[in-house]
């Protein structure tokens, strides 16, 4: 029971965190009536997970060998893109938090396309979703013996626990200031995206698309990334016990580039530009 609890808690944790963050985010910018973006994204993620789970069970041969890998890579790519985009936008907005509340909220809703929130929710749920579906499915078909029941119950409790944590973030997040919420989640989402980016690079390396590189370090004796703590850190901030140089390098590259984009000091100054369609005087 304990083992299956940990598996689903770990698989569901990331999704619950992201869902908790996006709902809090919508609440913070006064877009409660747009919760449906997050809800629909999350629900579509669940549906897609079930569909992929069914598909994987039905497929065989090369489609089963490669299909899920390609889908997995695509999800990572989309997730990194929307996380970066959203993080960048949040940071811009956090800086502009001055002036009256209502104007701020209107600006937020007008300038940030809220469907991105939906995509964020979708990828957050779908990334580990198909795996969780298959895992649960296997357990439920085995739930005919007392031990089978215990395993299935453990798994469902694990998911419930993950959902509770997501809910706790939403409840707790409502009481902290907008700026603090943006600051904390920006850093968290940046590291989450960096971990995904590095995982994607590692997958491409293993598939032979990117060149192979030697191991950068080995901390598997201190903190194994297959263990409970290491596994959680792996899911949250991309911790790896034995990464290749390519994986470590792409992590740092992402943190460097996205971090510079997100946290450069001062608001971006609008550039003075000559109006279009006018011929400069000296050229006439």
């Amino acid at each position, binding site marked *: 029971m304990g083992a299956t609890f940990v598996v689903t808690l770990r698989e569901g944790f990331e999704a619950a965190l992201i869902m908790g963050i996006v709902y809090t985010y919508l609440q913070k910018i006064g877009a409660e009536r747009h919760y449906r973006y997050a809800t629909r994204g999350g629900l579509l993620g669940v549906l897609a997970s079930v569909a992929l789970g069914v598909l994987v069970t039905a497929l065989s041969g090369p489609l089963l060998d490669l299909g899920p890998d390609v889908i997995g890579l695509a999800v990572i790519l989309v997730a990194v893109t929307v996380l970066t985009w959203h993080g960048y936008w949040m940071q811009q907005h956090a800086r502009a938090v001055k002036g009256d509340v209502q104007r701020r909220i209107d600006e937020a809703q007008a300038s940030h396309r809220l469907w991105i929130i939906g995509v964020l929710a979708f990828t957050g749920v779908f990334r580990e979703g198909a*795996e969780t579906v298959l*895992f649960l499915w*296997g357990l439920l078909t085995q739930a005919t013996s007392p031990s089978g029941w215990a395993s299935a119950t453990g798994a469902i409790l694990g998911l419930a626990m993950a959902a509770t944590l997501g809910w706790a973030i939403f409840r707790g997040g409502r009481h902290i200031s907008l700026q603090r919420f943006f600051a904390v989640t920006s850093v968290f989402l940046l590291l989450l995206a960096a971990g995904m980016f590095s995982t994607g690079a590692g997958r491409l390396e293993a598939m032979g698309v990117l060149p192979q590189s030697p191991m950068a370090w080995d901390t598997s004796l201190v903190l194994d990334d297959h263990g409970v703590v290491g596994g959680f850190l792996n899911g949250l901030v991309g911790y790896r016990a034995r990464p290749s140089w390519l994986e470590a390098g792409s992590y740092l590259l992402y943190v460097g580039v996205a971090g510079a984009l997100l946290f450069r000091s001062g608001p971006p100054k609008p550039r003075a530009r000559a109006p279009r369609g006018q011929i400069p005087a000296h050229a006439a």
Partner: protein
Amino acid sequence: MQVKANAPFVLVITNKSAKAAEFESKDLRVEKVVPAGKTVNVRIRALKPGTYSFLDDFNQQATGRIVAE
């Protein structure tokens, strides 16, 4: 499990149990769900000599090692 170092190979994983399994190896950068009763082929690139661990992520007592020599 022993394999030849510096040569690519294909790992043929058959799940003979009635539950889905996930072949996972962070060392090999592979995460592969194998539904009950199914067989999955995983291409592995040439490995440097060394030990590479793997496990069933859905049943973590099931572990193993690939030794490349």
